[in-house]
């Protein structure tokens, strides 16, 4: 019964979305009266999709195997958290989650957007409803999650074991919140193009939404990377897999958008470019959805490979993106540019940032799609893998990192490069000194390492240079300095911290690429091996049954160079329902470094043991967390919350005595 209720709710949401898309995009001039209706429609869509989603979750939790989706993806023995996350661990369910987040953002605009001009609100919710209609329609007509089975089986087929992890509970919702959040920027861009009105208030509205989505996407990507690192079993953390690229491109482009929206908000310049980036960013999110959902790419992310579905998604994509760019081509000329500035200025630096980020997006896009296109045109199969991306991407990022610390130190309109350089001398000197010191101590086998280190330190120190400069640290009493620091605007803090996070991530990447060590050996219980000063003793080995798998567990004792002793367990699991094997690595953290130990297959009566020492690898994800934290700090800035003045409240007539 609840399944049918959910099904009906989704159909109803689809119908309302169709009507509200029409109403918003065609009748948008009707003003406030329509806006009231549109707001209610947006909230209603959210409630209905939430009901549909809840029906699915309920079926999974109670193991209702009359639901085809639950049969294919659930198992009654699975822990509760994986039953719930199993809802979106498949094609149909993940689409419903996608739509849920889409309508949630629409409802948020309706709830917080009462101060928006009515025309703009109508257009934004109209566009948002159009997206909902497209994806709800796609779900209902090609990938219906509410199908029943006539003769329900007693047990389900279980979820892909690699996905039975806390990562699945967190990674997709975060990533989707980021992807789909950019739909708001898209809707605002479309609204600006249709109405021909775009001003600083528009940018002030778009920027917090961009920031919010960007925070989610940053966390989602970092989370996915860490998940792959500990789950896939060989300690890689980024593979330039097409699906990873699909999430990375909106991130890069969203980062560019954050910076260009800043120029628009402060200086009323770069309007057309900002609108263009808004469209591009969400288009890349849609492209990501298409690449993952169409089955063009096979990977652990692809749940269904059905060409018919792929074609429908491609058609939706072509209409939405093609329509948006056609609109852009026709209407962009109507948007007036403003705000002149000299090449050397804050604006100029932000344009340079956008140039490199946009080029990086292009390079990753070409690299990801090139094999598909070449195969289709010439029938030749080539691979474009990590070596290509590492080279191209680093070559584009190096100049960006080099100029990054200058940006925040330049004034708007006309900056002084020499003065900015003088304020960065200390940061540069410190970075050079540390690079030489570490290169000398650590031994450098790859020639690019010192450059990477230098850039990492340079960005880290350069970002906090402004904080030190403004607090006059060391030149006035410490308490006075701290008081000044606390009084700095949040925007300066979030800029500095965000850039510092980037520097930290760069340092982590460089360190682990340069100084990772590995030992592959065979061990029997009772034997020991050694790696980078760590002694690893293989204590015992036993077979342990788990809830829905059987595990072979190796127990290890690791002695660190400092003398601390840790007990570790590494597992190989065979899942009962699917018979699929997985490995659970044992990971021990030492400061920011980790020891990664994996129990391999048996080999001639012994066990293959692989151990990696990953120096400062945690900096990679710590940097991402710092970046996301800086974004949250920026969201609390008062200037972002006060978007536009509140319309005067209507005076309430006093009741007569």
């Amino acid at each position, binding site marked *: 019964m609840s399944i049918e209720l959910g099904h009906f709710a989704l159909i109803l949401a689809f119908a309302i979305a169709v009507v509200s898309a029409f109403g918003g995009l065609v009748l948008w001039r009707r003003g406030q009266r329509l806006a009231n209706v549109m707001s209610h429609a947006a909230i209603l869509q959210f409630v209905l999709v939430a009901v549909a989603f809840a029906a699915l979750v309920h079926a999974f939790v109670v193991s209702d195997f009359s639901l085809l989706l639950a049969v294919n993806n659930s198992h009654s023995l699975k822990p509760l958290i994986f039953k719930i996350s199993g809802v979106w661990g498949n094609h149909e369910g993940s689409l419903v989650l996608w739509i849920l987040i889409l309508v949630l953002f629409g409802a948020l605009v309706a709830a917080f957007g009462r101060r928006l001009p009515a025309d703009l609100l109508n257009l934004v919710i109209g566009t948002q409803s159009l997206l909902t209609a497209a994806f709800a329609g796609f779900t209902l007509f090609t990938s219906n999650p509410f199908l029943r089975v006539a003769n329900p089986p007693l047990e389900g087929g279980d979820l892909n074991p690699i996905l039975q992890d806390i990562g699945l509970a967190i990674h997709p919702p975060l990533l989707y919140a980021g992807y789909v959040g950019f739909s708001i920027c898209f809707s605002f861009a479309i609204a600006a193009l249709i109405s021909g009105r775009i001003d600083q208030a528009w940018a002030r509205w778009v920027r917090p939404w961009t920031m919010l989505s960007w925070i989610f996407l940053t966390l989602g990507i970092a989370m996915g990377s860490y998940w792959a690192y500990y789950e896939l079993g*060989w300690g*890689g953390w980024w593979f330039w897999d097409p699906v990873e690229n699909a999430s990375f491109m909106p991130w890069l482009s969203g980062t560019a958008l954050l910076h260009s929206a800043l120029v628009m908000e402060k200086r009323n310049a770069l309007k057309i470019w900002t609108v263009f980036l808004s469209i591009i960013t969400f288009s890349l999110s849609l492209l990501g959805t298409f690449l993952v959902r169409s089955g063009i790419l096979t990977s652990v992310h692809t749940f269904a490979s059905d060409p018919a579905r792929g074609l429908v998604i491609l058609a939706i994509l072509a209409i939405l993106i093609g329509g948006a760019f056609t609109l852009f081509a026709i209407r962009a000329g109507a948007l007036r540019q403003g705000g002149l500035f000299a090449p050397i200025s804050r604006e100029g630096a932000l344009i340079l940032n956008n140039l490199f980020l946009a*080029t990086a997006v292009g390079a990753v896009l070409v690299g990801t799609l090139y094999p598909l296109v070449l195969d289709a045109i010439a029938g030749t199969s080539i*691979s474009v*893998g990590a070596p*290509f991306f590492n080279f191209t991407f680093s070559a*584009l990022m190096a100049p960006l990192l080099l100029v990054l610390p200058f940006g925040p130190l330049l004034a708007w309109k006309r900056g002084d490069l020499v003065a900015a350089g003088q304020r960065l001398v200390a940061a540069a000197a410190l970075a050079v000194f540390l690079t030489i010191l570490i290169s000398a101590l650590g031994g450098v086998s790859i020639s690019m390492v010192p450059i990477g280190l230098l850039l990492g330190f340079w960005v880290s120190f350069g970002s906090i240079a402004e904080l030190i400069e403004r607090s006059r640290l060391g030149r006035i009493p410490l308490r006075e300095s701290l008081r000044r620091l606390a009084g700095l605007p949040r925007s300066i803090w979030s800029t500095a911290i965000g850039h510092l996070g980037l520097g930290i991530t760069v340092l982590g990447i460089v360190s682990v690429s340069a100084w990772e060590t590995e030992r*592959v050996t065979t061990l029997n219980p009772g034997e020991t091996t050694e790696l980078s000063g760590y002694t690893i003793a293989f204590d015992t080995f036993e077979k342990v049954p788990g809830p829905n798998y059987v595990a072979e567990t190796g127990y290890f004792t690791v002695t660190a160079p400092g003398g601390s002793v840790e007990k570790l367990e590494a597992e190989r699991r065979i899942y009962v329902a699917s018979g699929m*094997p997985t490995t659970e690595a044992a990971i021990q953290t030492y400061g920011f470094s980790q020891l990664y130990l994996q129990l391999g*297959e048996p080999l001639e009566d012994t066990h293959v043991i692989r151990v990696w020492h990953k120096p400062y690898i945690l900096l990679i994800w710590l940097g991402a967390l710092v970046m996301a934290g800086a974004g949250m700090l920026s969201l609390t800035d008062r200037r972002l919350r006060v978007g536009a003045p509140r319309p005067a409240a209507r005076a309430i007539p006093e009741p007569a005595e």
Partner: protein
Amino acid sequence: MKRILAALALVFVMLTPALAVSPDEVLDDPQLEQRARDISAGLRCLVCQNQSIDDSDADLARDLRILVRERLVEGDSNDEVEQYLVDRYGEFVLLNPRLSANTIVLWVAAPLLLAIGLIGIFVARRRQATPTPAGLTPEEAAALAALEDDTDKRS
């Protein structure tokens, strides 16, 4: 029955992870082994999803790793080993595509985009810079003169 068992056994063998580089594959000469690792990281495991043979646990990847080491032991240079594999499996095996007529677009894409972006910025600036602010209208000039006159008198 025997057939079913054989099929089951086959399935089991396919599913058992034979994880990346096994100790029995490793060469005794550490220098040769390091070269083997470097080459392996750039070779695609042909049956996997975007993994190098150095990372992959597939049987084919293992075979290729052993093949790479055999060629190295026989004295091939890194390029010769790569060529040997390309001859057998095609360019698809290389994770870092070679520069050729087919891949020229791929390799020039990034520099080209950067150049287009730079030109775009330059053109946009030129276009923006052209409309110089219009001169003062006669009324404004008169008002300004009056103001200056006023200031002069006060000082």
